[in-house]
């Protein structure tokens, strides 16, 4: 079985599409997470393939579904955090020989195919639909929701995993070389770190609206606080440290105005969900969380980096698409879990949504109010990547768990959890999901 990448037709990129045709008819039920780690220790049982199997099995158990009832699998094939297996580095044969390998020896180690997973999960005997959602869980979720709605699969697993190897982030390969090929040279000769583009958008935002980097501190503190209540997350598992304003503001710059904590920490992790039709979900072990809509943006910047104008136009458009397809307004959101890795763009997502009525330039002031899970205006109850490390998955897990009423110490208490939204990554472009405790 060859696995195709999801076609463009599965995404809802445009405004004016109306209510999503499968609104309330697709549900997420099971959640599974593997333990996190900072980097791979080289053992077979901790390679990215192994932790993915772990997360998938936990999602299946969580939903209480027999593995032979599962007929679909959506995978994000890219697993890198920025770490690549260097050319010429010997292959880890003991790891490769521990699994049923595909033709690619790095499958399950530095990437992930649906074929590899099916070869190593013999209990999945009835999977006849596989598809790749490129990039992020946010993308794969859109694909999964649409596939279940369209009847391509009735009980579908979706998984995103990350590997991280020894060595400093993005510092190998071309960045260490004496010369660059002409095309990448046009953008890479100047050496901007990964967070540079976001840092510039934030700088422009601060100049335009008279805001400061210090105003991010309450958001960062809140996000880490929520992350420390996320037992599946990296900081909760390995470094249970609060992030107060002093620590945040004293940390070193990476690309000023982005500091170390504004950059999410690369980790190894795997997160998986079990999706099904609303009908089948009704008989499963956990309370179904219904998908009201998925929306996407494929907007690209005109030139090297998105300008603030481009970002604001696109986040506003994304907000309209999210609400239109779900048949809701901003007033219906119980909480928001938009993406935050890098932290300095979370406000763009919030303002595009018009969350709690905030307009462009107002989110940092909003951060100075009660944004906790106990208050009436929860911001990022998942804690996001700031709170649990780089995964782009926590926001989705949290939406499901909040609406199921099993977010534990993170459970929102100042609002009734009825409708949530999550997605990203960057404010220009991205993929978004609207979740609901009820199908209508």
């Amino acid at each position: 079985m060859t696995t195709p990448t999801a076609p463009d037709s599965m995404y809802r990129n445009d405004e004016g599409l109306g209510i999503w045709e499968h609104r309330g008819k697709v549900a997420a039920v099971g959640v599974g997470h593997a333990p996190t780690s900072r980097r791979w220790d080289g053992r077979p049982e901790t390679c990215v393939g192994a932790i993915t199997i772990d997360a998938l099995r936990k999602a299946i158990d969580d939903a209480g579904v027999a593995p032979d009832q599962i007929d679909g699998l959506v995978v994000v094939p890219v697993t890198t955090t920025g770490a690549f297996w260097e050319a010429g580095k010997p292959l880890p044969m003991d790891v490769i020989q521990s699994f049923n390998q595909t033709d690619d020896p790095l499958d399950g180690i530095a990437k992930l195919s649906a074929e590899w997973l099916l070869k190593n999960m013999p209990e999945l005997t009835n999977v006849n639909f596989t598809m790749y959602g490129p990039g992020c869980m946010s993308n794969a979720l859109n694909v999964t929701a649409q596939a279940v709605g369209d009847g391509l699969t009735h009980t579908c697993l979706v998984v995103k995993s990350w590997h991280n190897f020894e060595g400093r982030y993005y510092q190998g390969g071309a960045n260490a070389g004496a010369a660059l090929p002409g095309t990448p040279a046009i953008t890479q000769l100047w050496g901007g770190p990964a967070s540079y583009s976001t840092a510039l958008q934030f700088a422009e935002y601060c100049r335009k609206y008279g805001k400061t980097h210090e105003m991010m501190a309450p958001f960062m503190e809140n996000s880490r606080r929520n992350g420390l209540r996320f037992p599946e997350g990296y900081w909760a598992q390995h470094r249970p440290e609060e992030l107060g304003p002093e620590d945040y503001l004293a940390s070193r710059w990476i690309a000023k105005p982005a500091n170390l904590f504004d950059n999410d920490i690369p980790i190894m992790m795997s997160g998986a969900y079990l999706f099904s039709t609303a009908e089948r979900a009704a008989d499963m072990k956990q309370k179904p969380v219904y998908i009201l809509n998925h929306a996407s943006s494929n907007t690209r910047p005109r030139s090297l980096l998105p300008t603030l104008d481009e970002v604001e136009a696109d986040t506003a458009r994304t907000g309209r698409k999210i609400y239109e397809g779900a048949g809701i307004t901003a007033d219906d959101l119980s909480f928001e879990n938009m993406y935050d890795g890098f932290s300095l763009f979370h406000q763009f997502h919030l303002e595009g949504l018009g969350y709690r009525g905030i307009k462009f330039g107002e989110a940092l002031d909003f951060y100075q109010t009660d944004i906790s899970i106990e208050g009436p205006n929860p911001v990022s109850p998942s804690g996001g990547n700031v709170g649990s490390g780089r995964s782009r998955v926590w926001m989705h897990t949290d939406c499901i768990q909040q609406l199921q009423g099993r977010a534990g110490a993170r459970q929102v208490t100042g609002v009734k959890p009825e409708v949530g939204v999550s997605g990203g990554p960057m404010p220009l472009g991205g993929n978004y999901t609207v979740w609901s405790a009820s199908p209508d």
Partner: protein
Amino acid sequence: MAKQGVDPDELTQPFWDAANEQRLVIQNCVDCDRLQHPPSNTCRDCDDGGALEWKQVSGRGTIYNYGVVHDCPVRLLQEDQPFNLAVIMLDDDPGIQMYSHLPGVPVDDVPVGAAVEVIFEPSANGQLVPEWRVIDG
């Protein structure tokens, strides 16, 4: 600041050749008459991918925005940290951006909005690379 060298490829050979002649050229679509940068093989605005030419531009611009890089992934630039990394908008079309280290401008003391002009600096393998300096007065 010593930048990595450049090995021009098919797409960008005209850009780098012009730089060696101290001229700044940017891709332009002959069909929709719109500049685009970074370069690509087809026009990103024309649905059928309009034909592209290289057009010489004035070499004047303004500083649109900047950050200060303290932790750079490029090994060769690490000894110069921290350094300014600015985005220039071209006067010919303010939607078109180019990067600059702003030689001569003190770190984190960047005059956003100031007028700049292109200069050309040798990279590690001698290829000239466009840079930008603030126009006095």
